[in-house]
């Protein structure tokens, strides 16, 4: 079963950095504070944490895209 993927809308992202704190396994911050996201599909055990990270983003820039919608 194909997994979801995390993507960030780089225009909405203002570099708050909450996502990297909540999902350090997949999200790191670059030297300017913007998220670098592991592009591979989400490992099953981290889904809850991914949702927490998405929920914590103050600008709603982080999204979890279901496998069915992935086209980019």
């Amino acid at each position, binding site marked *: 079963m194909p997994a979801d993927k995390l993507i960030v809308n780089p225009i909405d992202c*203002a*570099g708050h950095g*909450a996502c990297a704190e909540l999902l350090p396994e997949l999200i790191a911050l670059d030297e300017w504070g913007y998220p670098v996201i592991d592009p591979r599909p989400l490992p099953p055990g981290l889904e809850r944490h991914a949702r927490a990270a998405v929920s914590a983003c103050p600008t709603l820039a982080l999204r979890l895209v279901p496998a069915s919608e992935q086209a980019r």
Partner: protein
Amino acid sequence: MSGINSSTALWYASRATGVVALLLLTAVMLLGLLVTRQGRLPGLPRFAVSGLHRNLSLLATAFVAFHVVTAVLDGYVDIPLTSAVIPLTSPYERLWLGIGAVAFDLMLASVVTSLLRRRLSRKAWRAVHLTAYLCWPVAWLHSVFASGDLQQGPLLGLAVVCAVAVVAALGWRLVAASKATPRAERVGLIMAAVHRGGQPGNQPSGNQPQGTRPRRKPGNEAERTLIQ
């Protein structure tokens, strides 16, 4: 309007939960302003600011709900339940209770749209959330004028402190917004800073105007000049 001297537990509960609700709402406003400024609470991780903002707003809603229910249930004065959400329908303290209803409505709108924000467009969510700037002063007015509790003694001090805090935070937010670099000028600003030979801190992007915040390069004077 002098304070009611009835000693029913419900009435006291309503007044007490009202005060706590005001405190919580004030904290929520301050945290909300802090989130937009990308500020941090000392000793806490970044996600704590928005996390606290969210949790305290839910707690505040709970306290307002208690405040409303106890006031309605208490038999000493007549307050129908509907007047908690429909303004100016309460026979008791029509105006100030009505204002409380307005505040409650706005609060519910912000909370509900935030809980459902993934289904809303950004613009819609933002438009509703901005009403928080109206909600808080209205809630404050209701708190101070619907009963005499906050008009004397230590509670008066509390009311004043809350007001000062929110006004100051709002002022800070507005000043930062006025100093924020418009999108079209951001890259020019960094180019100038970088070509002067400095290594400026990162220029914030995103659609919200905000000031710069220190990164892992401490004591970076070049940062300050970017936003002037």
